[in-house]
């Protein structure tokens, strides 16, 4: 494996200087907590909705560079979008991580840099964490709830 394939400069930039990383969000509507026990990643995502749009979005947590950078890039791509549009974009990212060509490469902004991660199956979950969290946050909002906790599949690992 080449480190450059996996860790493009754009990814490292988001890792070193994450965007919209904060432990709290004023007037938040929904807070979701997602964890990935295999990697030990933990992510808190907070969203504020106005006029059916993503008005505010912050993430916080612990995890590998891929998970943190991807969440950072996700926030930039999602803030300001209609909820439905944001869900559609999250689906586009998910499909890209499973090897499909993205339908909306320009809308993913820096998220497109993660396309190479699809070649590293064990890291796909890392890249998806923030996107799965924002999808959950929007769906939680649409269901009328204000919090949700999700533990992603643990494959158990080996000894």
């Amino acid at each position, binding site marked *: 494996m080449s*480190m450059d394939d996996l*860790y493009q400069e754009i990814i490292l930039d988001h890792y070193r200087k994450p965007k919209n990383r904060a432990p709290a969000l004023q007037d938040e509507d929904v807070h979701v907590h997602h964890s990935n026990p295999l*990697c030990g990643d933990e992510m808190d995502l907070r969203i504020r909705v106005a006029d059916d749009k993503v008005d505010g979005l912050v993430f916080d947590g*612990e995890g*590998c*560079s*891929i998970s943190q950078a991807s969440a950072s890039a996700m926030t930039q791509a999602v803030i300001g979008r209609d909820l439905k549009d944001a869900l559609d974009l999250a689906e586009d990212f998910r499909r890209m991580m499973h090897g499909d060509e993205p339908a909306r490469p320009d809308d993913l902004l820096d998220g497109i840099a993660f396309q190479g991660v699809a070649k590293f199956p064990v890291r796909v979950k890392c890249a998806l964490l923030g996107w799965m969290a924002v999808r959950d946050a929007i769906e939680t909002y649409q269901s009328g709830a204000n919090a949700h906790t999700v533990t992603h599949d643990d494959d158990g690992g080996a000894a």
Partner: protein
Amino acid sequence: MTLDVQTIRKDFPVLSREVHPDTRLVYLDSAASSQTPLPVLEAMDHYYRWSRSNVHRGVYRLAEEATDLYEGGRTKLAAFVDADPRGVVFTKNATEAINLVAYSWVRRHHKPGDVLLSTLMEHHANHVPFLYAAKDLGLEVRHVPLTEDGRLDLDAARDLVADGRVKFLAMVHVSNVLGTRNDVAAMTALVRDANPEAVVLVDGTQAVPQMPVSFRDLDVDFYAVTGHKMCGPTGIGALVAKPERLEEMDPFLTGGEMIRDVSIESVTWNDVPAKFEAGTPMIAEAAGLAAAVDYLTGIGMQAVREHETALTQTFIDRLSQVEGVTVHGPRDAELRGGAISFAIDGVHPHDVGAMLDSKGVCVRVGHHCAKPLMKHLGVVATARASLYLYNDVDDLDPLVEGIVAARSFFRR
């Protein structure tokens, strides 16, 4: 005694492989699974080419050879761990061996209110089966806490057994995360002082590959072994037990091979250990395991132990000097086996693993199937380098270079 590592490496074809151009494979993950030496491959190949048939009851030559290979594997493993072959039950791995005890001993012999004692450093394989049994049966489970340097806190253990209700102890011999080599004799004495009837199971997964083990001297009831960490194939392990314990147990897998007599309405079990080995067993794997035992015996387990202890000390001392690196577990290699878990300040273990992989270095990252221990350490995951007889000081430089590179690459 020193091992001739360069010669040993020639027995392991994979170690001559380049995983990236001009990058030697540096395999530091033997605690997860060791590599396979040629004699083991040849033994399995020979069975499939020339002696392939089922075991037992065959009256022809091939069937006799297959039976000899299978039963010979049992005899060899028994001698290797100094146990009675009648007490060696082949299983698919150590996890199945432990589950056999959980189902056929714990679930049959313990009652609500009995206490199972375990430790905070168990692999999930030696934790979950008892947690599950305890929930179903209404048993209480207590866990021996750890000292600062990752050893069992025997004073705390003494308090945990004081009420005499501990009926069963499940503990690991050598930790797969901390490396700690536990004092089985001290723990067993402590538990049996409080309750002479207490039954003891030891998870020997990481011990048997690395040091001489005498089941007789340990004087425990059950000891779980796996083949694939001791140069043997995957798919075979064993429960080593005192035969009288096995006599007191009913099987948990039933079917062919394990019966003495069957009618349409009744069944009598075969003798031990056969009554626990339902169905066609892992014959090629038993032949491979026998070859692994011969291979390790030829080198000498005392020599393996001494090599690993010296090498582990060298690794720990050097890693401890690398800026930002914290080594978990005992610092003194005499107190541990060859699994070395470490944290790198500010770098996630997954990123460490990716950087090391780019330099041909194989380490394991994650929770190592020991989440209660991870919680105790206050971490979600660690990186772990683990050593074996084919490792040497020349494997240390690539590891340290990778760690230093990861630290500068990922530092924020």
